[in-house]
């Protein structure tokens, strides 16, 4: 869509906008992909990725898509810079009346102000650009002390002013300071800058070596935006020297061809919130008007910024994609830790079961005294309890292992993953339920088996159940239980019952451990970290590249 036109002096790409609908489609698809990307795990790069995503989204919504849709819309010039650089004074002076309050207290501008020609009002009154900001129609009339108070209750607003002194097709936006102490202001300033066709960077004689504005300038260069710098508040004695040094710094940073304007510090205007004399800002004003009114220049300025943003996608999308991939990798690592812990515990439990670990302690004592001093019901109770203890032990051991593994994972710091409520009690409850259910089924099996026998020789089904449970859980030390079972219900019946019971036991064991594992993974699954976003982001980018 951006074709090279005839070169006109400027070293930048001299291009015009020519938008095809396919490009817009690709762009909005890409926008949706970006909007869908989530970075919920607190990895090292996640906050940055989140910020990048928000910024990219804001830039797509606020600037690129509306600009490509409607190239005829007025140029938006955003005035940005450090706190106290005199942005509001500059805007007021360019407009020729007080539209944005200026003052000595920092940060002064908390509500961004957009100024445009009355006939351009409709371009900005709708939600075409900056859809996140609520429009304020009525300018605050109560000039004075109230202006110094913090802005509205948390909702982000954009105040729109009209002035006939501005030419058609030009809108000025007075942004909050980029290095504000108020964090919201910083975010808002960044977002506003993203929406600009022309960036105006304001710095001062005292600040031109500050680190923060230089970052902005570098970013502007990265995006290849149409950029102007204004060196404000320069005491008249040192104008030439400061200006020269600033120029040298810009040249060194590779921004030597950026138009540079110098505004002297004038006593009558500097701190009073008044207006600078028209002569002080005349060069800047003339340059801006030229950008708007000369179709070639307008096209160039607009195309350069749009082209720059599209170009910047080439590096920004892969960055987002790699962050998404890192998220997925971290989620995989977390899941693998859970799976590993439960798998090894599962194996351990099976081993212990085969070794007859359940028939120990209380259960063993019961079994030893079984026919004489202990009833079958008591033996079954003891066995069930012992089995529940074994399972609970496995589950807590697995949880402990997971905690240990997750402690080394920065991603596990997500709220809800590690600081879960002490679920041990409920795990005990759930396992107890499962074991009781298993016991009931075993008893039913025993009854079934006994019913097939003749009435006269049929033993008590409870005894059969207790014996089969002992044989299943007692390993080799319960051999005599198997023998007793065979004596009572016959060898084939005993074998059948033991088979069924064994299958049931394995089934319940798997099910219980699986349920606990799922429960442990549930918060992670709820975060819904999938591998797709990475591929989707890259795919959307490549479609966009093809359409250009």
């Amino acid at each position, binding site marked *: 869509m951006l074709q090279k036109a005839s070169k006109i002096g400027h070293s930048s790409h001299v291009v015009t906008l020519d938008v095809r609908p396919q490009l817009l489609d690709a762009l909005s698809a890409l926008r949706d992909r970006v909007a869908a990307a989530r970075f919920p795990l607190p990895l090292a790069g996640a906050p940055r990725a989140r910020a990048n995503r928000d910024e990219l989204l804001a830039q797509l919504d606020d600037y690129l898509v509306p600009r490509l849709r409607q190239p005829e819309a007025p140029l938006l010039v955003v005035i940005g810079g450090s706190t106290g650089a005199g942005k509001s004074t500059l805007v007021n002076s360019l407009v020729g009346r007080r539209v944005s309050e200026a003052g000595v207290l920092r940060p002064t501008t908390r509500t961004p102000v957009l100024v445009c020609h009355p006939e351009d009002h409709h371009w900005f009154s709708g939600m075409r650009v900056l859809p996140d900001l609520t429009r304020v129609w009525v300018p605050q009339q109560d000039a004075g002390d109230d202006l110094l108070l913090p802005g509205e209750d948390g909702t982000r607003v954009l105040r729109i002013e009209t002035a006939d002194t501005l030419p058609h097709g030009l809108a000025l936006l007075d942004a909050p300071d980029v290095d504000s102490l108020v964090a919201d202001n910083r975010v808002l300033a*960044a977002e506003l800058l993203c929406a600009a066709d022309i960036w105006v960077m304001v710095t001062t004689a005292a600040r031109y*070596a500050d680190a923060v504005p230089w970052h902005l300038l570098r970013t502007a260069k990265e995006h290849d935006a149409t950029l102007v710098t204004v060196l404000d508040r320069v005491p008249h004695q040192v104008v030439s020297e400061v200006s020269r040094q600033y120029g040298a710094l810009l040249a060194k940073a590779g921004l030597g061809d950026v138009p540079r304007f110098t505004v002297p510090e004038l006593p009558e205007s500097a701190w009073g919130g008044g207006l600078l004399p028209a002569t002080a800002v005349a060069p800047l004003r003339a340059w801006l008007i030229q950008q708007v009114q000369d179709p070639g220049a307008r096209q160039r300025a607009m195309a350069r910024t749009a082209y720059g943003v599209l170009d910047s996608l080439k590096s920004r999308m892969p960055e987002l994609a790699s962050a998404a991939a890192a998220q997925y990798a971290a989620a995989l690592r977390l899941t693998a830790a859970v799976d590993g812990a439960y798998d090894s515990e599962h194996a351990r439990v099976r081993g212990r079961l085969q070794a007859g670990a359940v028939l120990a302690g209380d259960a063993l*004592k019961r079994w030893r*005294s079984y026919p*004489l001093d202990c009833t079958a019901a008591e033996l079954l109770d003891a066995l069930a309890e012992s089995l529940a*203890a074994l399972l609970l032990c496995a589950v807590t051991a697995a949880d402990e292992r997971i905690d240990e593994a997750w402690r080394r994972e920065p991603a596990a710091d997500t709220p809800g993953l590690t600081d879960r409520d002490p679920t041990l009690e409920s795990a005990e409850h759930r396992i107890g339920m499962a074991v009781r259910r298993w016991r009931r089924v075993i008893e039913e099996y025993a009854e079934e088996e006994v019913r097939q026998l003749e009435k006269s020789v049929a033993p008590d089904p409870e005894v059969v159940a207790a014996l089969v449970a002992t044989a299943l859980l007692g390993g080799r030390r319960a*051999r005599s239980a198997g023998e007793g079972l065979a004596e009572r219900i016959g060898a084939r019946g005993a074998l059948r019952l033991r088979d069924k019971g064994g299958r049931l036991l394995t089934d319940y064991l798997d099910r219980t451990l699986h349920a606990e594992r799922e429960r442990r993974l549930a918060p992670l699954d709820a975060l819904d970290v999938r591998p797709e976003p990475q591929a989707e982001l890259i795919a959307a980018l490549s479609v966009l590249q093809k359409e250009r």
Partner: protein
Amino acid sequence: MTAVTAVTDHTDQADHPGDDEGREDGEHARVEDDSVSAHESAHKEESEFAHRDSVHNEEDDSGHARVETGKDPQEPDSAEATNATNATNATETSSASETSDASEASEASDATNSSDSESAWDDGLIARRVSATTEGQARPVKEAVVENRPPVVTPLAYDGPLRSRLDALRELVGLSRTRLDSRTLAEAGRVLDEAVARRRLSGQHTVVAIAGATGSGKSQLFNALAGVAISETGVRRPTTAAPIACSWSDGAATLIDRLGIPGRLRRRPLQSPEAEAQLRGLVLVDLPDHDSAAVQHREQVDRILALVDAVIWVVDPEKYADAVLHERYLRPMAGHAEVTFVVLNQVDRLPGEAAHQVLDDLRRLLDEDGIALGEYGEPGATVLALSALTGDGIAELREVLGHFVAERGAAARRISADVDAAAVRLWPVYANRRQAGLSEEARDEFADRLADAVGATAAGEAAERAWRRNANRACGTPWLRLWRWCQDRREPPTGRLAVRAHADEEATARQRVEQAVRTVAEQAAGGLPAPWAQAVREAAVRGAQGLSEALDQLAVRAGTPVGRPPRPGWWPVAVLAQASMTILQVIGGLWLLGQVIGFMSPNLGVPALLMVIGIVGGPGVEWACKLAVRGPARRYGLEAERRLREAASGCGRARVLDPVAAELLRYREVREQYLRVTGIGASAG
């Protein structure tokens, strides 16, 4: 685009426009300042001062602190001056002999210091002063200051509470080394090292740094305080690239050495008696900016800010709300409010009322940063408005600084604030959320779980039932016994026969032991900070190794009843009664039989009565015995259970609970030290 939002996070990618620029540009900046231009050009001044300073360095280093009597009207007479020389010698040799082993060397240095100086100062009057000084090390510094001592390099002395806090911190670091990683302790270690290093150096001097953003007028203020244009000022940003020190009195050489400021950057202020008197003991350091794109400036600022006693933050109306200043410096140093000055420079650029507004706004911002403001006589940061250009407010700052320096408490207060900050940073690794320790319930629960694991309850019940069975069998009617015996022969011998076979089997439920240990460790570790909770858990797990095997052996030993089960005293009587009932039956039966076969005279009544008594009395006795045996059987069973339970819990206590309790005790000890560090706990002993 992140660069736009991430304001404070720009260390990594900043390249440095401007700093090379500054150097290659040969011409010196013209100074517009009236007061400065009255003096000679900065260049000449610099060379002259450099020369004078090098002379000073030589004097200090060689130990002959020649007192410049001509320049200082308040200098003491020559006798004291020579003493001073000796003392300087002594201190310097002692400090030179100190090794790098910081923690122990400091104590040693104190001792050598005092003994050396005692030998050097042995005339009567001054000896008393020496003892006063050594006492003064124990007492607050302020008292030592009241005596107007000659300007010798006297090491700094911390007051009692601070010393005890430092000792506690040292102890804390030592105790925690095995539990915490060195990164966590690094900050505390640094504070200790700095405290030791600062203590060796002059206590007569207060090092004050002037810090601020580029273009705020740090150098201007520095020059205004010094009275001469020492530091180069200019419009090129950033102007000052390296820190410059200016000392108002002698003996600060080692202090400035510590800051790493080379000799060529040390200056003396304009010599004027009243300024000298007011600011005696002040060492002023002009820092580079902290916010320009030149990264090494910021590194230098960060390094020096950690070493100075106090800081004057210079802000200007344009930059006073910069996020960098507040978020990176003022907020983290909020605890250092007492050694912080915040100066709003360039008020001459503000029209009338605006200066007050800005100053109020600055106060509000500082308040939001958490910095206590020293208003209404409360301790806290001093906030002033001044103009270094016009000299407006300089006198006030000078006066405040004069008082501040004369107090000579800044160094100690700074160290104290450092200790506070270190303590706050260590809070998460030492503070417990709730009462830590093993409650009685937790111990009982652990014993119960172990008893379950060895099967104490079941064993007790089994013992009780076996005893009752035996008793019933002993006291039962012989016919019943006969019938049971027959039935026993018919029944298949399940269970009880095979079990005896394996004596070495795993009789203890391993899973229950594991769970018991885990639960008790979890309970003991609950509320502890993570590293200590981990230590407790590890202690429990270590103790639990081999616990199951020990319980196995123990169950074999304690589970088998000792000797034959005890019999109650009435047992023979019951057996006799049962026997006599049987005999009565037999007699009655035989009698009846005799009558039937005609061997005896027929008398139905008596033998029938005898038989009935025998038949009814047998089960009657048995029933009575059953009732009577219930109590002893229960006692016997409980006794068996108790024996097993106690053995198990004793084993568990020795192997698990004691190590855990020891670990908890260690934590409690450390926590006590920590409380002492924070100053809440027991005061100096």
